[in-house]
């Protein structure tokens, strides 16, 4: 199979997967480009950041119009993730990478456990809250009205999400989806769509440096971005049809996969 077609197919899968789960797809794209296509890590990360934007824009175009993405909440938390992403590089210099990776792996295992337990206890329960204006996303025909909780904690958490994203080179969605669903108690479908809306802003903050510096190979990025854009549009539509329990189950699997990768990095095997 031609090299470019493989790149486009990889992008298609990552885009669909990312839009379904509120991730940017970077956790797939970076390993695919580095391990599968022998691309240097900096070029893979730069390309991945542009693909995260493509996943976000392709999916959010569908989700915002359908009322699934909570724009007000997304921009408020986006402020935290953007600041976090911009400061991530500074913090990265203060802690050893292995320590960060170990902490992140622990956080992911805890997140997976909590999400799985929550899904088993209350599979599709919408929640109620103290911030009624955030119920804007309930305009969508299929999503029940909801209210979010613990806004100040979530804003702080979004800063951490952006920071972790900048520190560890993973999509911020792996943190913002649990933040929206577990901390703020937004329904999983709203959490996924809002996270998908937010990650474009977070990725853009970091992408400019890679793009202007010449760390992105445009001839490689082009087929991947084209695949991602198509995959994201498909994934956003699939996400609306999947049952909440399936979304959570898929997300838990991905979180555990990332936790495993981070644990391997912590012990020096990856």
């Amino acid at each position, binding site marked *: 199979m031609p090299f470019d077609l493989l790149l486009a197919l990889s992008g298609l899968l990552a885009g669909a997967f990312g839009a379904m789960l509120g991730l940017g797809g970077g956790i797939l794209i970076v390993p695919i480009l580095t391990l599968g296509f022998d691309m240097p890590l900096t070029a893979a990360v730069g390309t991945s950041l542009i693909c995260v934007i*493509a996943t976000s824009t392709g999916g959010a175009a569908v989700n*915002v119009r359908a009322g699934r993405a909570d*724009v007000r909440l997304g*921009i408020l938390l986006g402020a935290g993730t*953007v600041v976090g992403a911009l400061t991530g590089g500074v913090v990265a210099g203060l802690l050893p990478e292995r320590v960060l990776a170990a902490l992140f792996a622990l956080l992911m295992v805890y997140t997976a456990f909590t999400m799985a337990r929550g899904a088993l206890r209350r599979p599709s329960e919408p929640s109620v809250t103290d911030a009624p204006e955030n119920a*804007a996303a309930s305009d969508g025909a299929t999503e029940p009205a909801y209210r979010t909780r613990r806004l100040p904690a979530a804003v702080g958490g979004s800063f951490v999400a952006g920071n972790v994203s900048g520190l560890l080179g993973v999509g911020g969605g792996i943190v913002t989806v649990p933040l929206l669903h577990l901390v703020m108690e937004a329904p999983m479908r709203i959490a996924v769509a809002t996270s998908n809306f937010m990650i474009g802003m977070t990725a853009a903050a970091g992408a400019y440096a890679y*793009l*202007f510096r*010449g760390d992105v190979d*445009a001839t490689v990025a082009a087929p991947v971005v084209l695949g991602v854009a198509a995959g994201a549009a498909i994934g956003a539509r699939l996400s609306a049809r999947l049952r909440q329990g399936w979304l959570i189950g898929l997300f838990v699997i991905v979180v555990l996969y990332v936790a495993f990768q981070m644990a391997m990095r912590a012990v020096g095997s990856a």
Partner: protein
Amino acid sequence: MSDRDGFDWLSDGIAAVLRIGTLVSVGIIAVGYVIGLVGGVGDGQRPLLELIGGGGPLTMLGVGLLTMTLLPVGVLAAASIGFARSGERSRMLTSVAVLGLLLASLAAAALLAQAG
């Protein structure tokens, strides 16, 4: 909050920016990519300004990738307009602040690339 004509910047406006912007950027990248496949393309790993100045398909790829990365800026601009029109002052200030951060990041990246 909708205008009198029913156009809501926070949903219709943002969705339009995303939909049109994605179509335009993906379209430019696709055309540049196809031209490159047919007629050949040089080294694509260059600083953005060199890429855009490279001519032919490289210029299209560079412009397309830049357009794609500017879409979040457009989304925040549309959101700022929406919040201003609906009188949500604190949310408008938040979106303008995030917009400023992204533009500052863009300017810093461009300046550092030129200096380096």
